[in-house]
């Protein structure tokens, strides 16, 4: 049974229809890359998946939680669905440990000790165990993004969403974040990632979805999507007219 299931989702900002009837399904443990031109609706789709944006029609089911136009049951869903943004969005007034512990404590009701254990475990997972007492401002962009990933992982989500998590980083810091994503993927996390890192998507994602003008234009096993694109739009997109 799929962990993520999207049925005919429509999303508008005012008169602008950004998602024009998107349907898809993601199986447990699957890693799905979402690629496409700027403005094609990739971020919007991810944001709808954890209810940051309401949808006008259609149905979204993630990890057993159903989202429809009414927007009920949001919090239950968000406990099971993590999202990491391009701009890390750490809480600047809290140390790394407290950044990670906050949600497990107040949203999940864990004790301080349990939350601390999760912070230590997830920081180790992203290779930053020694930064547990640091302030976010004193970390590099790559380190902040890894803390943001750890913060999401500490909720022990069933699905992780990543929206261009390396786009704000200098090239030399991109690698350390991609390495974390790759480990996560190998450990069986269900992941949807919007990315411009084509080589990474091809190597790590089981499946790749090409979005075009608010629709899933083409999808398939990553090797096929990148190796033998069927539609002219995807071919053109891959052949360099990136933006």
């Amino acid at each position, binding site marked *: 049974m799929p962990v993520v299931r999207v049925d005919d989702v429509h999303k508008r900002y005012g008169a602008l229809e950004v998602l024009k009837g998107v349907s898809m399904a993601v199986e447990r443990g699957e890693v799905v890359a979402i690629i496409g031109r700027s403005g094609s609706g990739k971020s919007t789709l991810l944001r709808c998946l*954890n209810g*940051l944006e309401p949808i006008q029609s259609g149905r979204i089911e993630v990890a057993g939680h159903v989202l429809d136009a009414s927007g009920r049951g949001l*919090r239950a869903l*968000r*406990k099971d669905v*993590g*999202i990491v*943004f391009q*701009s890390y*969005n*750490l*809480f*600047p*007034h809290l140390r790394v440990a407290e950044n990670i512990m*906050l*949600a497990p404590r*107040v*949203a*999940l009701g864990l004790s301080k000790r349990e939350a601390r254990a999760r912070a230590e475990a997830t920081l180790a997972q992203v290779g930053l165990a020694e930064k547990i007492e640091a*302030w976010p*401002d004193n970390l590099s962009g790559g380190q902040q993004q890894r803390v*943001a990933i750890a*913060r*999401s992982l500490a*909720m022990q989500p069933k699905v992780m969403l990543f929206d261009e998590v390396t786009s704000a980083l200098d090239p030399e810091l991109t690698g350390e974040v991609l390495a974390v994503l790759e480990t996560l993927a190998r450990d069986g996390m269900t992941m949807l990632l919007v990315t411009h890192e084509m080589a990474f998507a091809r190597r790590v994602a089981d499946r790749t979805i090409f979005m075009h003008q608010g629709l899933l234009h083409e999808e398939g096993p990553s090797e096929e999507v990148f190796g033998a694109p069927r539609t002219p739009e995807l071919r053109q997109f891959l052949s360099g007219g990136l933006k």
Partner: protein
Amino acid sequence: MIRQFGVDEFIFILGSAKWTLVLTFIALALGSVFGFIIALARVSRFAPLRMLAGAWIGIVQGVPVLMLLFLSYFGLAIAGLDLPPMIAAGISLSLYAGGFLGEIWRGAIQSVPHPQWEASAALALTRTQQYRYVILPQAVRIAVPPTVGFVVQLVKNTAIVSIIGVVELARAGHLINNATFQPFKVFAVVALIYFCICWPISLLARRLERGVHAGRPG
């Protein structure tokens, strides 16, 4: 009989400064509660609440404090509610402080970057938890310098209540001047006392301002 401006007169003026401080304190305490409610109402998701709070801020900022004072003293008296001057003074200054603090704090809350809301929502925090753990702690840092700056205005504005007979610093100076006819001496002393109260607060405000821009205090 004309008195000389001596030690007794000086002590009388100095003693009356206590009431200036008391009024400032009351206005600040009640005004804070009031201002906090107004600030939250102004950023509420409930439109009528936003409009109500907005209207209130508009009134308080658009009307001289003196009018608030006359309304709560003379106005309520006509309505049958005869408040002692000190109470009327406390109420009107609190309303005034509440309006201004509400606006300062609304600005502080809104200057916390929007992604902080999103990140905390995505972590399954309720709206109350978002305020308590993520938004307000950051807003406080932003709000402290202008709030302290406002306290200086508040101290000086308490002088206005002398008009309904509350003997605070300004009124005490007035009384002593009537008895001594030494306005220069008398009001220089009064001004100096105001200065001694306000100057340290201004310094503090400026220091805090630098602190905020320099980054995070521990």
